[in-house]
């Protein structure tokens, strides 16, 4: 066999002590063939197709866990954006689709299903508008359904009308789920340059170029990178830090490659991508913030944080790219504030402001994620925060996203407990200056010069 004890113990340590896991195996399912002029028939088809394809997803995931001794934490489903499926029925209220997806998710035993989605880079179709209008009720009435909307891209620019409407939806969703701290907003995300094979919720969906069915794997492991850097110590220079992260990311991604192949084979479908993303959880040690602090900032948010995060994200991508030909999705480092114990602490001690977080998102793999703001934040301010974030993505040819939660009845500095994987948040101060006129102008931010490549 030729493995050294050291190699074997390293692997065991990663799984046992450093919380290495496969974060998700996500089954993408095309629902385009479910379109029907009659909404009830369309919803019946959506339910039947998801259940037919997704029924054995959990069992397959568990069989791989058993056979290989690898934890697969979540099994999820991503569908075609529902606005495309619903267009044929011409209805104004699309919540029946959300209920059908939710019921199917329950039967399949998955905790989340993504795909209550629309692409509106340049404008709305009637179905897109109907989907937007029904998002708050859809999220309030269902448990498993996640909504994601694409509001801009480098090719198309930013649709400011859609961003303004999205901001209203965020406030409406928070109000409808006020009894749960506005938690509906945790299932609602907007994108610039969306990733169409993203296996992670809330943004998971199966986009326009995706096959009939596909298995995408999300692999995590901030705890492993953290431990590797702790062993490296503070004397090593940054090249050594990058090398350590890269080697570690390589090993983590190989597990994703193994599970992806095996899951595709057992499901009888295509292996899509491995998304190697350091995705923190509230568990001690499973923190991207801890990694940044080990690289050398006193607290996440201190000067140097953006540089450290840039190094980390890049090294993760490089290690991943060597480990699998199928690396895709978002791949890099996630910085969901409420889900990372270190980041919550950084906000609590005043090290991490909203402005610094925005700067960090220009080099992380996603964007402003799980950020709590006061429940009375004006809609125009939300529009400004979202437009800023999406502009970073548009100009830099990268995916950026916003998952923001205006917590009803809470002000800056207040704490909100969502529990479970969603963690705890401290409400951040968006400042007292707004952008009312920008919000009211509407229209589009034209595509940047970077888009003219042909």
């Amino acid at each position, binding site marked *: *066999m030729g493995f050294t004890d050291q190699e074997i113990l390293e692997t065991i340590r990663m799984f046992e002590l450093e919380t290495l896991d496969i974060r998700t195996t996500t089954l993408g399912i095309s629902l385009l*063939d*479910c379109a029907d002029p009659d909404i009830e*028939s369309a919803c019946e088809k959506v339910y039947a197709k998801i259940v037919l394809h997704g029924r054995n997803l959990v069992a397959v995931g568990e069989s791989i866990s058993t056979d290989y001794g690898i934890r697969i934490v979540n099994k999820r489903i991503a569908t075609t954006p529902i606005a495309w499926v619903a267009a044929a029925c011409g209805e104004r209220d699309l919540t029946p689709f959300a209920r059908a997806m939710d019921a199917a998710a329950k039967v399949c035993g998955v905790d989340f299903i993504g795909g209550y989605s629309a692409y509106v880079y340049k404008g709305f179709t009637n179905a897109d508008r109907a989907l937007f209008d029904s998002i708050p009720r859809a999220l309030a009435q269902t448990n498993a359904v996640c909504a994601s909307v694409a509001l801009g891209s480098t090719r198309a620019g930013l649709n400011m009308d859609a961003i303004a409407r999205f901001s209203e939806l965020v406030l409406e969703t928070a109000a409808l789920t006020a009894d749960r701290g506005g938690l509906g907003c945790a299932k609602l995300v907007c994108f610039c340059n969306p990733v169409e094979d993203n296996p992670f919720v809330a943004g998971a969906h199966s986009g326009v170029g995706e096959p*009939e*069915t596909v298995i995408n794997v999300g692999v995590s492991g901030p705890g492993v990178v953290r431990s590797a850097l702790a062993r490296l110590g503070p004397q090593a220079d940054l090249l050594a830090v990058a090398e350590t992260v890269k080697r570690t990311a390589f*090993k983590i991604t*190989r597990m994703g490659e193994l599970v992806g192949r095996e899951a595709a084979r057992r499901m009888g*479908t*295509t292996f899509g991508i491995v998304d190697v993303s350091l995705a923190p959880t509230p568990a001690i040690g499973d923190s991207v913030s801890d990694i940044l602090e080990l690289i050398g900032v006193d607290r996440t948010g201190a000067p140097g944080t953006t540089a450290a995060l840039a190094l980390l994200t890049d090294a993760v991508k490089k290690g991943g790219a060597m480990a699998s030909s199928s690396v895709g999705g978002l791949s890099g480092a996630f910085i969901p504030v409420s889900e990372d114990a270190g980041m919550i602490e950084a906000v609590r001690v005043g090290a991490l402001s909203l402005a610094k977080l925005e700067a960090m998102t220009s080099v992380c793999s996603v964007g402003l994620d799980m950020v709590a703001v006061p429940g009375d934040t004006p809609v125009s301010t939300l529009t400004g925060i979202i437009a800023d974030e999406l502009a970073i993505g548009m100009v830099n040819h990268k995916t950026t996203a916003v998952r923001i939660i205006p917590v009803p009845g809470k002000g800056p500095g207040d704490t909100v407990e969502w529990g479970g994987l969603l963690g705890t948040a401290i409400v951040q101060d968006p400042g007292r200056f707004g952008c009312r006129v920008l919000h009211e102008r509407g229209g589009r931010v034209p595509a940047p010069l970077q888009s003219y490549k042909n």
Partner: protein
Amino acid sequence: MAKKFITTEDVRRAGAGSLVVDSETIVTPQALEYAAQNGVRIVDARGAAWSEPTPDRGPDAQRAMRTLPHLPEPASDADVGSTQMVVVTAVGRNRAGVLAEITAALSSANCSVHDISQKMVQGFFHLVLTVEVPPGTSFAQLKAVVECLGGQDDYVCRVMHERVFRFMHRL
């Protein structure tokens, strides 16, 4: 061409009697329920009651089933063939009989040890066994038998598939 889906509305339109569907057709649960309530029989071309089709995963899936087995696997020194190899590790306080307990459990599952290594540090041991599992043996059962050995203040045993180590440490 046969309909891909049969919904409640389709059954309603079909009226009483039998509704003949293609073997690939997906009949929604709501349609099945409506048909049962209204005495409509949903049957295939041979007159047999409809049964759920095998999921059609799409054209890429068919290609994937042909090509997936040909993806390069990380190199292995051993001729694994049709047998499964697993790596058993144990860590804990040393005492008489630890190795015997573990190998007895493996022996009862007809496993044969290919490689073994044990180190001691200040009264604690770590043990690594590479084991061949005969075809037909359930990995889950073996894992259950081995991982319940030892205990909290004694030692802890873990079983992982050899392929995990190969993917992580070999190209």
